[in-house]
Structure formats: C-alpha cells, structure tokens
C-alpha cells in the first residue's frame, strides 16, 4: 500500500505576511517552513507504516509550488517519507482553491495512493478545505480535522471534534484524511535523515505530465477573482504592558479591573 502526504511550504511565523498589490496574490517570498500541521500528517503516516496493521510499502510526500518548494519535500523526507513528488509549472500560478484542489488531485491520481494524508490547515489561507476538494475529485471518502486514527479490519477508525462533540467515524480505504495537531507528537528528524534527504528520489512533474487541463488552473482557470483588497476597519489598539516587575504589573491589572467594575 502507498500513502501520499500532501505538504506545503508556509511563511515563517516571524515573517510579516502581505499581499502583493500588483498581483493581488499572497507574497510567498518569505516562505520557508514546512506547514506544521503537515508534520503531523507525515508522523501519522510513519506510525501507520511502523504499526504494521496495514502493509505500507512507501510514504510519498507530494507538493505543488514554485522551485523553492523542494525545501518542504526535503523536510518531509527527513521526517520519514521514502520519496517525493514536486508538481511545478508556471501555468499553476495564481490558482484558487478550486483550481489548486483539482491540480493536486491530478498529481495524486498519477501515484494511485491507498491513503492521502494532509494537515488540516495552513496559516496562509486555504484553511480546512483542500482535503475535501481533493477527495471529491479522487472519488474517495474523506474526513477532515481528525485527532485519532486507528486501523480496524483494514478500515480506518477516526475521531474528531465536530459541532456537537466528538464523532467516531469508520472510513474505508482508499481515503483522504486531514489531521489536526492533537493526533500525535511529530518526531525530530535525525541528523543522518536530514543529511540524506537530498539524496532520496524526487520526481518533478509539470502540469501536462499529470494530464492537468490547462484551462482549469492558474489565474485563468480559477473560479473566483479578487476584486479589491482593503484594510480592516480601524480598531483602537489596546494598551500593552511588558511584565518587568510582576508586583507592579499585578497592581496595574487590579486597577484596570476595578476601573471597569469587574471586581
């Protein structure tokens, strides 16, 4: 069996994120980290492989993005993936959620995975949705925001929190599952794994290599358009105290609470 992990590069938390006024796209130049949620997806894949209840032959990391996105693949391989696939093509730039989900589904289709795992969200926009978009294209069952995954009788037994409490759901394979950060504690890659990551097989694919229809991706193929970008309504910023002397800080807090009749 084969597990594909969808991964992506996201901006470093310390980098100020901004939208490029000329293209109305997110400026991705500061991106250099593997999306933290994706590290949980890789860990989940590794635990399935090591658990042995499913005969997992390989774990393949898959990403879509510019040349620099190979860094995310190297990190994914250092964390345990056996090899990686990089979908990259100028024609894909500016794809919206609909187009991105379609393109990812096409590259995944070329790998015929038995299970697709991904992080439930990334902090650069496409939160929560990509897994479900990909699943419908691949005609696979899907569950997002999963926090517990077990194998029972060749099926996945999954838990997640939904509107009314915790749901337990049984899903047949092949399937697309997005995971939350409570699902596991990702391991640290060994130095040897980091050093060896660049030597592992990395296949680069263009849009036509995986039969992506050109008119369904990129800005032209997107189904939404950004009309305007505006600053949010001005909100008066609150006061910020640096805690240097805790007794003094507490005095200020008590005064603030009293002033608002909260004590």
């Amino acid at each position, binding site marked *: 069996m084969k597990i594909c992990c969808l991964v992506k590069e996201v901006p470093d938390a310390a980098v100020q994120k901004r939208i490029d006024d000329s293209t109305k796209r997110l400026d991705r130049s500061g991106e250099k980290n593997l999306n933290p949620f994706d590290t949980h997806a890789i860990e989940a894949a590794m635990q399935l492989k090591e658990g042995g209840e499913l005969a997992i032959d390989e774990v393949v990391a898959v990403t879509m993005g510019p040349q620099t996105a190979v860094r995310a693949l190297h990190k994914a391989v250092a964390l345990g993936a056996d090899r990686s696939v990089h979908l990259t093509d100028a024609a894909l730039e500016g794809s919206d959620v609909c187009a991105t989900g379609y393109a990812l589904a096409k590259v995944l289709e070329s790998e015929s995975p038995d299970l697709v795992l991904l992080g439930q969200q990334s902090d650069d926009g496409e939160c929560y949705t990509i897994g479900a978009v990909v699943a419908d294209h691949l005609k696979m069952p899907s569950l997002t925001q999963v926090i517990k995954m077990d194998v029972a009788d060749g099926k996945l037994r999954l838990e997640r929190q939904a509107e*009314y409490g915790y749901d337990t759901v049984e899903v047949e394979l092949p399937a697309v599952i997005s995971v939350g950060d409570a699902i596991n504690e990702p391991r640290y890659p060994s130095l040897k794994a980091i050093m060896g990551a660049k030597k592992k097989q990395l296949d680069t694919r263009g849009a036509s290599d995986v039969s992506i229809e050109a008119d369904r991706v990129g800005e032209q193929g997107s189904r939404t358009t950004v009309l305007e970008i505006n600053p949010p309504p001005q909100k008066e910023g609150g006061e910020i105290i640096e805690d240097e002397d805790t007794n003094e800080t507490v005095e200020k807090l008590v005064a603030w609470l009293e002033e608002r009749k909260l004590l």
Partner: protein
Amino acid sequence: MAGILVYALHDDEGNFNKNSLGAISEAAKLAAELGAEAGVVVVGDVSDEAAAGLGAYGAKKVHRAKEVPEGLAQPVVDVMAKVIVDDGYSYALFGGGLLGFEVGAGLTARLNAGVTMEVTQVKVADGKLVAERPVLQDSAIVDVGYVDEPGIIIGRLNAFDLSEGDGGSAEVVDVDVELSDWSTKAKMVQRGEARGEDVNIEDADILVGGGRGLGKAEGFELAEALAGALGGAVAATRAVVDAGWYPYAAQIGQTGKTVAPKLYLAAGISGAIQHKVGMQNSENILAINKDPNAPIFEFADLGVVGDLHKILPKLTEAVQAKKGG
C-alpha cells in the same frame, strides 16, 4: 432564478444549528436583493413541521433528503449538487462550522465552482454576490467575486445574524438522491460524544480562558484559582481540549461555544481566528501571553507580555485580597 441554497445542520434531537439559521436569514436577505429566493437543504430525520418552520427565517423552499444520514459531509454534497443543478440555484451559503467547510469544499470540486471561506460579510454588486473575507490574521479584507455560477460561500462562525422574518411557512419537498459510491464509504459510529464533565461557560460574566501557554493540564489549576477569585468560570481553546487538558464543554470557538462575558481573561492563548470568533464580542478582553507577536494582542483591550506562571498566582492573591478587604 438566482436563488441561494443553504445547508441547515441539526443535532440528533432535530435542533437546528444557530449558525445554519443565521445563514438562512442572510440568504433570505441577499436573495431579496437579487430578486430571488432562499432555499434550504436538510437531510435525515426532519419532521414536516420542523422543515416548514425554517420559513420563519426566510426560507421559501426546503429540500429534504430523508434517507440521507446527517453528520457527514459527502452525502450532503450529493444532495446539494443535485438540488443546485436541478433547481438552478446560483449560490450555496454555509454558516460557520466544520461540516459547512467540508460540504462547501466538496461542492467546489463536484461543480467546478469558486469558493470563498471564512467570509464575514456578503454584499450584492451588479446583481451578483461578492464575499468579503479577512485574510492574514485579519490584517486585510479581500472582496472576492465569482467568475461563474454557482458560487460557494462559507461563512465564518457567527458571521450571519439570525433573524426571524414574517413567520411564514416554507414549502417542503422531498428529494430522492442516489449517493455516490465514495459517499457511503464513511460511516458514523458515534456522533456528538461529550467528553469530560459538563461545565457552563455561557452564563458566566467573567471567564478565564486557558490555552497552550498554560504548559500542561495541571496549568489549568492556575486558571481555576483565578476564576474562583474573580467569581467566574474557566474556558479553553480547542488545542488544549483536543490535547485532553480540559473538558470539551468549556471550549470556545469554531467547534465550541460562543461567549460574550463582561471580562474575558485570555491566559496563554495566541488568539487564532478559530478561537477569536467565539469570544471577540466580550466587553473587556485582557490577554496575558509571553509572545509579544501573539495575534490576541491585536484585539485585546489590555495585553500583558509576560510569564503567566508568575503573573496568575500573584493576580489571584491580589484579587482575593481586594475582594476580602
């Protein structure tokens, strides 16, 4: 017809979700501006009366798929895709919530339709809907238009206010839908299990919210002590609830509760959007966090950058002294 279709989620007792009802109200308002009507999809065991009752929020027509199970997204995608195509709806609108995200995303793929998530406002321009979506930790607001119909709009939690209209009754039509193969390959084993004790945070005037910054489950003792001194209750973020540090019933945000106390004291909470949507209407927000870049400081009325393990015990003592004195 340029109608707007809403999915109304309900629990196992048949109670509709507040965010779904808000989405119906919003759809009715927008549809009126478009010169169209708002429709609703419900699945599972919904009585004639309950379905027709959605007319009170402005729904004209309720499409009911009785045989389709409630609680998982993909069967609902099958139903909504069919209704959108058969009845010619131009938009699908979802209130905030996990299932809405999944159903909306599935429809995007199925109908090759544009989607906008975390929408806080929808407006009408030139006979079309435009979705407003805050991005980059709410530092910019993007207006998103749709190239073609249908367009999918997924609201942020509590984005759409619930309003009861003229109290009319909606027409209820049963729809027969053949589910896709893959939609039947996920099965609900148990739905809506409450874990941990039941706590009431919605009626508290003062809430001390605890997040990952508390360090470990035992860290909640600090929050409980302070809440006790202030005469309030303790609330929690999803991250710490999923990690098992605190009961689900105390959770605020996207898949938890929405609160608006007189004081919300956020201890070790970064202030991610998913939490913010559940508590941003609190009258006074006080945040303590060691990370000066935490988003919570952008909407707190008073922020303290510091170690809550040092500050909370002393604050508890000081509040006790004040109240006792």
